[in-house]
């Protein structure tokens, strides 16, 4: 640990936490929205009138990345320039990144599946958009809970 001075450990931990909180759900959301986007394109190439429905459903799994962004932003906000964080606060901020990171990733992937199912449902019957959105939002809840937990932990730092 020659490279880092003792005081920087807390800051580095917080930064790693922030990065984790964003990168992991970001990957999940990208994968999920990417797959849902392909699925949406499949539907649209046969039936362009369903654009609005499939677009809403496609966008749903992107929320995890947004929540990750919020948490990362809050964590980074705790770091003051020129002032080293103590190790305890740094660790708490690092741990705060974990719920959002892990739950965000998993829920993004699964919400992606529900979205694709929803898109396929819309493909089958025109009016299924609302049901599809509601079903996908069930998964959203866990991401929101993770967001709250992460938020609370940040508050303890």
């Amino acid at each position, binding site marked *: 640990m020659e490279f880092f001075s003792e005081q920087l450990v807390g800051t580095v931990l917080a930064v790693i936490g922030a990065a984790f909180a964003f990168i992991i759900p970001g990957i999940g959301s990208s994968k999920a929205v990417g797959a*849902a986007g392909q699925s949406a*394109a*499949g*539907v649209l190439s*046969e039936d362009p009138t369903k654009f609005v429905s499939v677009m809403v459903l496609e966008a749903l799994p992107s929320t995890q990345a947004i929540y990750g962004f919020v948490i990362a932003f809050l964590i980074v906000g705790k770091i003051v320039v020129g002032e080293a964080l103590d190790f305890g606060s740094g660790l708490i901020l690092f741990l705060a990144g974990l719920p959002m990171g892990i739950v965000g990733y998993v829920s993004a992937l699964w919400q992606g599946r529900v979205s*694709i199912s929803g898109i396929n449902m819309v*493909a*089958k019957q025109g009016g299924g958009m609302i049901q599809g959105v509601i079903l996908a939002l069930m998964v959203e809840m866990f991401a929101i809970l993770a967001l709250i937990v992460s938020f609370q932990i940040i508050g303890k730092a």
Partner: protein
Amino acid sequence: MKESTDTRYVYTISRIRVIEQKMLSPAMLERMIEAGTPEEALKVLHDAGYGYAGEGYSVGDYERLLSEEQEKVYRLLMETVPDTREFDFLIIKNDYHNLKVCLKAEFSDQAVEDAYLLSPSLVPGKQLMDLLRERNFSGLPAPMAESAAESIEAFTKMQDPQVIDLILDKAHYGHMLMLSDGLGSEFVSKLVNALVDLTNLKMLLRAKLIKKPRGFLESLLIEGGSFDKEFYHKLFELGYDQIASACVDTEYYRLLTESINALKLSGSLAGFEKLCDNYLVDVLKTVKYAIFGIEPLVAYYLAKELEIKNVRIIMVGKINGLAQYAIRERLRETYV
């Protein structure tokens, strides 16, 4: 069954979910059956999006219409999936058919008529004809080349056209098993296994029905599938009723009991064949809501094949003036 997480096909799957809506529902098939003339039945098909736009189809063209419809499905798959080789196992059936046609035509000094060749196929029919004429098998997939050489040899020795079919049928299913195992999809393996099992059972019942010796069965049976050859030989010695009860532990018990009852009533295997198709539709329906993997695509392709079979039953029935109940009795279950 383990679900696939392969996301490469989501685009095609969603596209197919839209197209699936246009598949012929039982109500539409019923409309075709109740049509007064074959022309009216054809019109129902036309309304359902069969055929290419701007082309007129008369009743006599229905066979062309149906084969074009199957090609349309295949073309959609080919245009939208990342790896087209994965669907080879679905179409090699047509290659083996073309191989049979070409060989039989050559041995009986007939010209190969285009109308007898099937497409889509791995090797286009015309090209296959040239390859065979030159006895150049290097352009064919290995199992196909081997079986072609084997059937030529067997025919020269025995002068019996049936051996061509027997050898190529076996090779076809062997090839299909090989290709489908390579996909690593549980659903596809189950499906192909069921196809092999049901084909073996069908051939067993037919051999029994036309009172063939046991040795003949040996030349029919396809390797692979859920049962070994011993099992079929054992079944062959049994009476019809015992065949069903001997299969009590298998998936096909219900199918066999029902179809053997039908067989005893009518003396025909039509009931069995229908129940086999219904069984396959049930297998296909297990992936009706899958969102990932190759499975929904395979299911759609085969469902379309069965739909076309239904349409053919109706069209042939209508053209030949079959009674409505007789047509209805033969219809397969639909996928949608």
